[in-house]
């Protein structure tokens, strides 16, 4: 029986856009300008006047607040704004979910989910510093030299590999697939930089068990996704890509401090997945292409398992470079190059790539793709995950 209280099919992505993606610190524009440019690019893609946007959703405490953006764009009515709270980019799919919820509830007509980052202007993720005293949860880790994102998530991967005896070869395959796909993507920061097994194996440790190529990039740029009602989407420039389902995902005490979350060996997707597939009315075997957020490759392995795309037992056998590539693989992964090789825009680029695949616009197109998964933020206290489809996928 279909539950009418779902997003399925009611909301469509009509515009996607991004700025040029820069290496960290190299944007010539301030972060706020990057956000404006990304929103304008998404509007142009949609064939939508920017002044028709009436809602804004972001995540990760984005510094560019909706009143300021609405003011800059000269938007006549700001009807809805929303922030999804979590660490890192765990809210990338959640921001799209919130935007879609605003549409379904009639709170707004055209909502943009966006994220901007200018690490030259505001400081690098991968670098800590300072000498001021620290208090609260950070005081339980930072004095022991645990302060960067890689350090916050490395021990989950150690424990995962210990419990299940898989992961190392899968992690390498994921990194290689991302770099492989970046070579065809003119937006990718790592276009022109290839990665083979020897280069991965010889790369330096950031923190064991993560090597350099297990870790996401740090970039400057911005990205934006515009959603509206599916019936209105049909009048806009591109074929609508419908949202089949979207969920945020935090497990029991997933926000516990000092690594005390009840379920430690998890990408954080276990609570969401059953709701996601039920809402969307699809199963893992219906998914044609996967965009799985790589803060660190070890998190992707757990994400794919928890989404039912492989198992704890066969992860190393399924997650091979040959299987993960768009050109002939059975489980095409991160077909833009993802956070490892396209750009680390806190994962919004992965949501955009899912849309491009369903429009037939990907630089690494999976022929006939109808259903795409795009998740965000493995291992963070609250992750999020979304399924997109062509209108044909609605059946």
């Amino acid at each position: 029986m279909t539950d009418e209280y779902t997003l399925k099919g009611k909301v469509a992505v009509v515009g996607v856009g991004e700025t040029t993606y820069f290496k960290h610190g190299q944007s010539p524009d301030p972060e706020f300008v990057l956000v404006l440019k990304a929103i304008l690019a998404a509007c142009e893609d949609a064939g939508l006047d920017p002044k028709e946007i009436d809602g804004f959703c972001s995540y990760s405490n984005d510094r560019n607040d909706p009143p300021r953006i609405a003011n800059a764009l000269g938007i006549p009515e700001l009807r809805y704004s929303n922030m999804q709270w979590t660490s890192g980019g765990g809210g990338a799919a959640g921001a799209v979910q919130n935007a879609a919820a605003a549409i379904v509830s009639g709170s707004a007509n055209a909502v943009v989910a966006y994220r901007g980052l200018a690490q030259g202007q505001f400081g690098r993720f991968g670098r800590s510093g300072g000498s001021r005293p620290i208090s609260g949860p950070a005081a339980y880790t930072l004095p022991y030299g645990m302060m960067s994102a890689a350090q916050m998530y490395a021990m989950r991967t150690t424990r995962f590999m210990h419990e299940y005896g898989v992961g190392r070869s899968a992690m390498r395959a994921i990194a290689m697939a991302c770099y492989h796909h970046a070579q065809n993507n003119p937006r990718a920061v790592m276009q022109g930089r290839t990665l083979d097994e020897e280069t991965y194996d010889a790369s330096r440790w950031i923190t064991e068990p993560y090597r350099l190529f297990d870790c996401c990039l740090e970039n400057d740029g911005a990205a934006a996704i515009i959603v509206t009602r599916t019936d209105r989407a049909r009048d806009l420039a591109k074929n609508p890509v419908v949202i089949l389902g979207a969920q945020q995902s935090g497990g029991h005490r997933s926000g516990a401090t000092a690594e005390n979350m009840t379920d430690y060996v998890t990408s954080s997707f276990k609570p969401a997945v059953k709701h996601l597939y039920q809402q969307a009315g699809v199963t893992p075997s219906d998914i044609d292409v996967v965009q799985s957020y790589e803060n660190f490759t070890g998190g992707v392995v757990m994400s794919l398992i928890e989404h039912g795309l492989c198992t704890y037992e066969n992860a190393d056998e399924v997650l091979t470079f040959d299987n993960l590539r768009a050109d002939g693989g059975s489980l095409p992964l991160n077909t833009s190059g993802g956070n490892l090789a396209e750009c680390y825009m806190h994962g919004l680029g992965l949501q955009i790539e899912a849309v491009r695949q369903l429009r037939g616009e990907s630089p690494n197109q999976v022929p006939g793709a109808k259903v795409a998964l795009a998740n965000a933020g493995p291992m963070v206290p609250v992750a999020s995950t979304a399924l997109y489809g062509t209108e044909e996928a609605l059946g």
Partner: protein
Amino acid sequence: MSRSTDEAHLPGLRQPVAANDGLDAPFWEGTKDHELKVQQCDDCGTHQWGPEWMCHSCNSLAVSWVTIEPVGEIYSWQRPHHPVHSALSDRGPYIIVLIELPHASGIRMVGNLLGDPMQTIEIGAPVSAVFEDRQGDPNFTLVQWEIAD
């Protein structure tokens, strides 16, 4: 069972101070006395770390600080090589461990594993605490770990 040292393992990082809401002050006071204190619920007996204002198990607000035996087992680990802070630039690799304390409701604590930074690390290995006394403003004591004899 435990010991103390005044040798700084990772000098130059930001020093801990008790939070200004008072929540974790008993922990930091305890470490200076070379005692490992965590919260325990007066009503249901559940231990918790990090501290919260409420027992996460039964939602009682009656949560007390108790001294527990400063021993545990290695639950997970990592070995940072890349220095992310200027104080670590010439330090070389070091080991961060996640220690499980089965005798205290299985809470976990983060610290460094002392000894050879390139040692082989076994998950499940028993460890005991080393209270690292440090000069600061105010003075403070970190809880480090070493393989138990």
